[in-house]
Structures are given as C-alpha cells and as structure tokens.
C-alpha cells in the first residue's frame, strides 16, 4: 500500500496521506476549511453536529468483476452517495471525490446553522467567546440571514451551572457537540462529564464528587466551540478582542508547556499590562494543545501583594529599604572581601540567562560552588546522556512501544506527561508503572482499575526505597516485563525520585540508562529517559553547571557568603535554619520572602517569568523562550540583570543590554546551546493538526504558535549509540531506626509553595495536611483515620491528619511536601510518628 492517495476536492486533485481524515486532509492540502463543530482532530469523530456535510463520491466498481468502471474518456466513473455525507467521519481513499461548494452543500450548512441557532441565545456581545467563536464565525460565513424561530419558543435554561469550582456551563449556549465529554473521557481518562436526558433536553452534567475536578479541566473551555464553558478565572474578565497574546512557557514543571498569556492594560494594575488568562499554545512536540489547570490558573502569584518590591539591606537587626545602586555596590564590596569563599544556590525556576550570569559571577570570584535547588533529583546527568532521542514526540508512541514510569507520580509532578503517556497507552503502547504506592497513572496500566477499558500494561509494587534495585535487576526479578520493554520498538523510561535520596535517584537514573543502553534504545528517536526534575529549568541548571550535590555540599560546609537565587531554602529544607546560621552573609533574591529574611543581609526583588524575557530547557531538553508580557512590579529585576550589574560593578564585564544578548553569549560559550539564538528559538513551522489560524474551528486564537517551538539539545547518546554500562552511584539504603518508620516525601500538584498559594482559584483546592499510614502501623500506634499526628524526622516536625490506607506498605508513611508552613523532609528518611489528637467527627 502506498503512503498517499489521490483525492479530488472541488475539481482539483490532491495527493494526501493515506488513512487521514477527510476534514484534516482538505484543510492541510487544499486549504479548504470544511466547517465543523463536533469534530476535533485530537479526538475520535462522532458525526453529531452534521455541519461538515459534503457531496462524496468514490470510483464506481462493477458488481460482478470488482473492476473500476470507466467513463468514455477513460477516467473512472464516480458514484456519488445519494445523501450528503459527513466529512469528519470519512477516511480518505484513492480516487475519492468531494464537492464542498455546491448549492446542496451550501444549503445544508445553512440549515444546520439555522437549527443550531434556533435554540442558541444571540448574546454574542456579552459572551466570553465572542470574537473567537466558531459558531459566530460560521454563522457570518454560512448562516441564515435571520432566525425563523420565534424568540419565545427558545428554551430557557441555566446560565451559570457550575460543573465544578473551576468551570461553568451556560446550558443555553451549549450545542451538544460533546467535545468536553469526549476530552475528559478520551484524552484525560476521567469520564466525569456526560450527557443527561435526551433530545432537546440533553445537557452536560457531572455527578462525580467532587464535581468536574481534574488537573486538565480548563482545556474544555478552549475546545468548546461556543461560549458554553467558561473558567471561573476568565469569565467576564475581558473581551477576547481587547487582549494581546504573548507567547510564554509554563513556569511550573519539566514539561515546558507552551502557553500564551492574554494581556490587557488594567486599571487595577496601575494601567499596566496584566495577565487576563493563560491559554495553551500549540507545540505538538511538547504539550500539543493542552495545558494543566495549574498552568492555566496558577498565574496569580505574578501579581501577588506579597511580592518583594524593593531592595532591602540589613543594618544591625533590621532590614531597611534601599535601592539597587547601593545594594549592588554593597554586595560587590562584600564579595570582594570574601576571598573567594562564596557559593551560590539557584532554584530550578531560573532561566538559562539568569544561571549564566550567576555562574559567570561566581567564576569571576573564583568559586565553583554552584548548587542546584532543591537537591532532590539526581537524574539530570543521565537525561543529558540518554534522554529521549532527538526529535522525539511522545504523541507518536503507540502500538509496539513501551513506557516504564518508576518512582514518581506524574499526575502530580508533570501532569502533561501523564496525559500524553496515558494516550500513548490508548494507542497501544505497553505501560508499566512501578512505585512504592498507588499513583493515578497506574489506573491506566492495570486492567479493570477503572471502567472496562482494555489496557496493555503492568504495575510493579516495591517497598519504599527499593526502586534502584528493581530497575537494576528488572531482567531477573520481572523477566516478562523486562523482556517486553527491551523488545519494544521504542522505549521511554521516566525515572523520578520518590522514595529515594538524592544519590538514590541518581543511581536509579543510571540503572535506567544502563537498561536503555543494553536494549539498544539509547540515542534513538522516541526512546530514552525522562525525569520529572522539579521546576521549569532542571535541565538548564545541569547544562549551565549547577549541581544538586553542590547544594548538599554547601549545606555541609557553608561558605562565608552565600547567594540564594529563586530558591526557597526555608520552605524546602527543615535543616536550612541550622546550616544557614553558619553563613556570614546571605544574599537573597526571589519573588517572595520565605522567612529567610531573618538571616539575609540583602533581600532583593526578582521578576517572574511573566515580566521578562528568558528561556528554559525542558525535560526533553528542548530550549524554549518566554517573553515579556506583564508590567513590572516595584523595583523587581530579572535575575540576569542583577548578577550582570554586580559583575559590572566589580569590573568583570559590561552589563548585557538584553536577555537576547545573554543568550547569544551562552550560545557561543556553552556547546550544547550552539546556534540557539532567540531568533532561531522563535521559529515555527506549520503543525499538524492545523488548529490555530483564522478558521478557529478547534479553539481559541491563542492556540496559534507565534513564539516558536524551541530547539532540542541532542542527547550525548544521539551521537554515540554504543554506551557501556556504568557502575551505579553509591547510595546507602535508608532504613528505619528502631521504633521508627520510613518517611517517604511525595508531591502534590496543588500545594502551599509560595508561588502557588496566591492562585485565587486553586488555593481552596489545596488539601489540608495529611500523611498516609498503613493500617498495621496505625493500629500499633493507636491511630485511626483523621487523627492528628506529628511526623518528626531530624529537624522536621509536620502536623497532619492520618489517612489510614494500605496503598503503601507497612513501616512507611507517605508525607506530601509543602502542605504546611513547616518544611517536610526533602528525601526519604527515618522518622517517628505520634498521635496528638483524636479525629474530630466530621459532618458526613
């Protein structure tokens, strides 16, 4: 069979990909926008709305012989279906003819629109979708001139029906296309939306508890072809045509979701540009057209009242407000005096430009102590070596491929990866989820875990801290699984740090690396290693020389002067107070004060991703740009400018005029960044499916990618496929001390981290502090469900409610980090549990 077929659209022949959908093919090859409402190229066609009707014909075949019947002129005779056919449910076939511009088709489009409008309110001027609404656009183009439906015959329905706390449904506007229902079912795998009743009473409902509440719910508002679904965040917030779209990158995790910030000058924000909403920006290689709710609704920290706004300098016991000039000159003096006994700790949300300037500063001072924060994940090195091969697209994984996810909870750590890997499983990939407890992704690896969905997968359960051994010995202990993984056409391994120490997570990544090397998958496209490194730029830290071990080393032997940039040491590390007290001078630059000001001699305000230019390297090693969108807050500066100013003050170098100039320098000095100038990063090619553009059938305008798809740094294995196995890094097994249990920190997507808490919409969704404890341990300690307990380990004491469950092993307590103001342990350790108070009988 050939890869292409010939089809004829309105009299012109086109060569199109075999097996493609007719709507997609017509759009891609002929620029012919067949109008659609229910069809969406990311989901299975359902043929519901009937908007895409076309005349469809195929070559006639002789009934007896099966041969194609020819016309007198030798061309094949085309037999048209007597009725119009839905293009969206049609797969192209060789010789197919369609007509999209005949009177019959024009009438049919007109009729379907008239039907839809017969019950749709004509309130475009006050509708959130107004200006980017497929129904509005199509009505302008194909619709009836006037409604023949009597106004009083229209149904009156609920206008503000909450599907959950985040998404509202306007029942009058809904056109029953089921895109939202199908998104939740097909893409997310959480079928919490459905139709209720039938006929004209058909309505979208949720009956789940809590309601429509998934980490991806906002996407439904993008794909809704009318203004029926709106987010509580943006509803009535602005008119789409008042907004300016600025390309950006999600600041939250290793996925590096491409986003668009919709900006408007806002009176309440001093007349400056303000983020009105966050929309996905199409990058098929990264996030396709989806973003997590955290990315969409988590942006409020950028304009939080708690932001640091002025440079502060300590005099005696107190910090006093100052200005940049004095701060920079005083810092320069202190650094000069330090005699090289300086170190820096950089948070994983810092841009490459920031990191470069910081590194240069430290080098200029003769220090190579560059700490990456938080020091929890040791996998970056292995990712640089055997990360997913050049050109990898997780969206292409499917039948014949395999995925192993070990020691992490992707739903909570990198939700978009979980979304895409779940879909790979739907397409037939073999999914193995290995962990020390239940995680959401496991539902898609175990037959019968949810619904009757047929799944290809396995779950491996191991004791806390045993991940390294499991990965290393997979071929022995899980022979069948290991064999399927090895033999798969493509193999992606996601190795995290849950239940591991920093050294343990490094060893796990190395074991995964060895597995990929042995199976021959290393260095090939659509195969390789991923790691849910915290923050948006875990790989950038690595490439620019910042190491988590250096952070541990800094804590173990503190320097005279410590520069802490965009890292919340107090929130993360229960021991921070102890070791920071040994540092003579702490220079702290961040968005928020995490309590460190008590120790800091300088507290300096930084700009967030929204206020400045910069770039991140995502977990697939893709370098991606974000751009200045929001107006400045106080005196905050981008970090690269702060460090550049200090360097200038110290006579090391001139301050660069722009982030672009910093990137230019990086590209000349750091080999992996070669050629990655801003202009190159901003390049976009037309992507399939073509969802942006003027037709807007598939979503809001903000899908259109104008900011570039980024450039991937090759993995070392891409060039050198013959990797030898390495010996795994030393990592002592952590064991519980006598009378203690293992405390296993875990991550929740919604937590009390400083930059997340200000999210107006999501803050109420952060769970109260809890810890999961096995029934046997609970019983031994006299703890029942809901009791208040103290979990203490080293310098950390966390007070939380006991959640008694056998989803973890006995002897282990799973403790979500960042649920309280006190810092929980960063890595697995031994600790004690004690009961503080009885469960309060709750109302239910």
């Amino acid at each position, binding site marked *: 069979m050939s890869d292409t077929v010939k089809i004829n659209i309105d009299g012109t022949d086109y060569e199109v990909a075999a097996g493609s959908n007719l709507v997609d093919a017509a759009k891609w090859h002929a620029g012919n926008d067949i109008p659609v409402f229910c069809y969406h190229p990311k989901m299975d066609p359902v043929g519901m709305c009937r908007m895409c009707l076309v005349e469809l014909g195929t070559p006639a075949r002789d009934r007896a012989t099966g041969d194609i019947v020819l016309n007198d002129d030798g061309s094949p005779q085309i037999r048209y279906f007597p009725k119009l056919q839905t293009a969206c449910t049609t797969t192209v076939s060789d010789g197919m003819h369609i007509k999209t511009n005949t009177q019959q088709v024009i009438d049919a489009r007109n009729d379907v629109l008239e039907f839809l409008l017969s019950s749709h309110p004509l309130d475009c001027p006050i509708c959130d979708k107004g200006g980017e609404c497929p129904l509005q656009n199509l009505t302008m183009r194909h619709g009836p001139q006037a409604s023949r439906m009597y106004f009083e015959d229209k149904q009156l329905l609920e206008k503000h029906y909450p599907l959950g706390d985040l998404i509202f449904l306007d029942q009058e506007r809904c056109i029953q296309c089921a895109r939202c229902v199908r998104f939740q079912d097909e893409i997310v795998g959480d*079928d919490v*939306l459905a139709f*209720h009743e*039938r006929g004209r009473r058909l309505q979208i*409902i*949720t009956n789940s508890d809590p309601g429509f509440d998934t980490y991806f719910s906002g996407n439904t508002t993008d794909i809704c072809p009318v203004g029926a679904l709106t987010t509580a965040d943006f509803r009535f917030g602005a008119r789409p045509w008042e907004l300016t779209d600025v390309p950006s990158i999600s600041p939250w995790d290793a996925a590096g979701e491409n986003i668009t910030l919709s900006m408007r000058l806002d009176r309440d924000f001093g007349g400056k540009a303000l983020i009105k909403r966050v929309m996905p920006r199409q990058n098929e290689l990264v996030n396709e057209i989806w973003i997590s709710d955290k990315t969409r609704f988590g942006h409020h920290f950028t304009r939080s009242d708690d932001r640091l706004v002025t440079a502060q300098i300590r005099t005696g016991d107190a910090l006093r407000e100052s200005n940049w000039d004095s701060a920079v000159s005083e810092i320069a003096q202190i650094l000069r005096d330090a005699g090289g006994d300086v170190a820096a700790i950089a948070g994983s949300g810092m841009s490459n430009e920031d990191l470069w300037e910081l590194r240069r500063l430290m080098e200029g001072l003769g220090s190579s102590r560059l700490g990456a924060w938080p020091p929890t994940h040791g996998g970056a090195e292995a990712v640089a070596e055997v990360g997913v091969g050049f050109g990898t697209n997780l969206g292409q994984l499917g039948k014949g491929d395999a995925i192993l996810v070990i020691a992490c909870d992707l739903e909570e750590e990198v939700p978009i990866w979980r979304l895409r890997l779940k879909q790979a499983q739907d397409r037939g990939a073999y999914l193995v989820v290995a962990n020390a407890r239940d995680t959401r992704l496991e539902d898609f690896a175990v037959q019968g875990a949810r619904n*009757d969905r047929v799944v290809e997968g396995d779950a491996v359960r191991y004791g806390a801290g045993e991940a390294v051994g499991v990965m290393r010995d997979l071929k022995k202990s899980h022979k069948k699984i290991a064999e399927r993984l090895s033999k798969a056409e493509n193999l992606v391994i996601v190795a995290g740090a849950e239940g591991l120490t920093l050294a343990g997570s490094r060893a796990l990544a190395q074991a995964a690396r060895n597995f990929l090397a042995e199976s021959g998958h290393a260095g090939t496209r659509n195969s390789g290693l991923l790691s849910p490194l915290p923050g948006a730029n875990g790989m950038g830290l690595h490439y620019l020389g910042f190491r988590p071990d250096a952070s541990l080393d800094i804590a173990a032997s503190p320097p005279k002067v410590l520069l802490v940039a965009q890292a919340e040491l107090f929130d993360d590390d229960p021991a921070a107070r102890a070791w920071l007290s040994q540092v003579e001078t702490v220079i702290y630059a961040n968005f928020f004060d995490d309590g460190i000001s008590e120790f800091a001699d300088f507290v300096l305000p930084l700009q967030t991703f929204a206020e400045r230019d910069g770039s991140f390297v995502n977990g697939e090693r893709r370098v991606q740009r974000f751009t200045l969108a929001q107006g400045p807050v106080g005196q905050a500066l981008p970090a690269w400018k702060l460090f550049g100013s200090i360097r200038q003050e110290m006579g090391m170098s001139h301050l660069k005029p722009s982030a672009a100039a910093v990137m230019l320098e990086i590209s000349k000095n750091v080999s992996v960044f070669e050629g990655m100038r801003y202009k190159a990063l901003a390049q976009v090619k037309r992507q399939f499916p073509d969802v942006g553009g003027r037709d807007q059938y598939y979503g809001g305008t903000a899908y259109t990618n104008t900011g570039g798809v980024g450039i991937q740094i090759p993995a070392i294995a891409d060039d050198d496929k013959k990797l030898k196995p390495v010996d795994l890094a030393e990592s002592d097994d952590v064991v519980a001390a006598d009378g203690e249990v293992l405390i296993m920190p875990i991550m929740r997507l919604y937590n009390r981290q400083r930059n997340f808490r200000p999210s107006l919409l999501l803050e109420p969704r952060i769970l109260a502090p809890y810890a999961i404890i096995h029934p046997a341990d609970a019983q031994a300690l006299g703890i029942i469900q809901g009791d208040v307990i103290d979990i203490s380990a080293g310098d950390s004491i966390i007070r939380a409610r006991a959640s008694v469950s056998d989803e973890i092993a006995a002897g282990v307590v799973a403790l979500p980090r960042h649920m309280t103001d006190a810092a929980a342990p960063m890595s697995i350790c031994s600790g004690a549990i004690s009961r503080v108070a009885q469960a309060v009988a709750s109302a239910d």
Partner: protein
Amino acid sequence: MAIIGNPKYEARIDHHLAKYETKRSAVMPLLYIAQEEYGWVNPEGIEEVAQILNLDPTQVKSIAGFYTMYSERPKGEYWLQVCTDLPCALKGADDFHAWLKEELGVEEGGTSADGMFTVEHVMCLAACDKAPMLQCNFHYVENLDQNKMRDLLAKWRQEAAGASNGHR
C-alpha cells in the same frame, strides 16, 4: 437498606454481572434493582451501582437520565403510565388520561396527595389493539374504561392498606 450486601439482590446482581462481557453492560439491570430498592433512582442508588460496576457516578447518572423508565424523582406506590400515543388516542386515550388525572387530583407527572398514585402519559407501549391501556409498575393493564379503572384503583388502595405491595 442498600443494594450492596443486600441478600435480596445478591443472586440477581451476580446473574447480571455474569451475563455480559463488560461490567458496564450491567448498568441498566442494576439501575432497575436500585429503583426497586429505593422506589426511584436516588443518589445512593447511583453511587452503589457505580461502585459495583467500577464506573464514575456521572456515567451511571447519565444512563439513568436517558431512559424514561428510570425515575430520578420519587414516585407514588403505583406508577401509572397511560399510553396516549396515536393509536390509543384514536380510541379515546387522551380523554381517559385526562379523566384519570382528575379522578386522582394530579397534574401530569404528579403524585396523588396520599402518595399512592403517580400518573403520566407515555408513548406507544405495543398494546395498540387494547386501548385504552396503561402500565402499572411495569405490568400491562389493557382494554380499560372508567368503570374498570375505578375498580382497579379501589383494589390497589385496598392492597396497599394491607401488605406493602409486591409490584416492583
């Protein structure tokens, strides 16, 4: 009571689960059981069915809403569904239906003050040669007229006064 763990339904639930290739297929028979237990498809019933079938409750609610024989509101002891579709209407079913509502003092879809009877009209029940007719708690009563109906109502009232009915 509940349907989960209720010995009354155990064998039937098992029978339905065994019939099909997927658990989901059993949602309709199980909704009938929930309706039998609670008198209508109430939130508890939906939860339980969802739990038995490992489905999201939204899916179960959706099924309950699509089909007219699941009632998402409480009904009277006797749920009277009068066919008023064309063939029956040609034989006076509309008048019969109107009379019955008046007799019981109820609106369309309403329940009599004593909680005994819910009256609603339905589409063709495949009994067109025996009009007027109705379905009472899913059993057919055919070739009706006002006299026969009065007798029946009296009988049902008596029945209810005696034991609790065994119709569903």
